[in-house]
């Protein structure tokens, strides 16, 4: 988490806000930069995979820990 270029706290947000905020945060990053996102929306697990696949960004990792979902995305 601490190695990411930028972090985004999307906890407490519901669909589609985590995706919209992620998109916004990625816009400000340069190619190759990483974004760490933490969310509580259970739908974000599938949504983030679909978002990365569709936008061509790399979902480096995703994990769940006690109802919190953590994602690491590399901008491409």
């Amino acid at each position, binding site marked *: 988490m601490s190695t990411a270029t930028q972090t985004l706290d999307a906890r407490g*947000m519901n669909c589609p806000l985590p995706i919209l905020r992620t998109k916004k945060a990625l816009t400000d990053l340069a190619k190759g930069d990483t974004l760490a996102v933490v969310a*509580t929306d259970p739908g974000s697990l599938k949504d983030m995979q679909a978002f990365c696949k569709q936008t061509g960004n790399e979902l480096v990792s995703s994990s769940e820990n006690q109802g919190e979902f953590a994602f690491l995305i590399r901008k491409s």
Partner: protein
Amino acid sequence: MGANETGLAASFDQTLFNQWFDERFETRMAERDAAHVPSLAIIATKGTLDWAYPPFILASTAGALGWDVSVFFTFYGLELLKKDLHLEISPLGNPSMPMRMPFGPQWLKNVNWHIPNVVMAGVPGFEKVATGLMQQTVKSKGVASIDELRDACLEADAKLYACQMTVDLFGYSQDDFIPEIAGWIGAASFLPQAQKSDVCLFI
């Protein structure tokens, strides 16, 4: 002339040609798919707080995915493009709408209040109360406000079109609406856009 034709026919291998064509076709189609930007066209016709969500959620999400988005707001849907949004919700005649308290202890929040239609229709201000409770629920569940989703659509360059006929019909003024409206158009202008879209929804 006759000899050339015979030569060509003799050197032409149908099987090889078919194989070459199939491979080439696959490559070309893959290139075309990769370069294709998906598009979404929505016709938004409802102007209540609950029905405001589907078009804006889908349009903003499609925008975040990099799609080309256009939404045509017509009839009551035009309400969603007003500068000042005063969207309300009515539980009257909507038996699917859960009526739950957004506050209080959990046991109270779990109660689904079955209020008779005659009460909903007869109590003055019932819709105002229902709208207030809905707004509170939206907030406490971390769901975006309509303003927020509309802004996200505009940031993603979604084209929001207003139906000019509805403006005339309901006696609105163009000044009542947000200045970002992409155009004041009619069905004949929107249909060709909808025709070319990959996803077209009527909401």
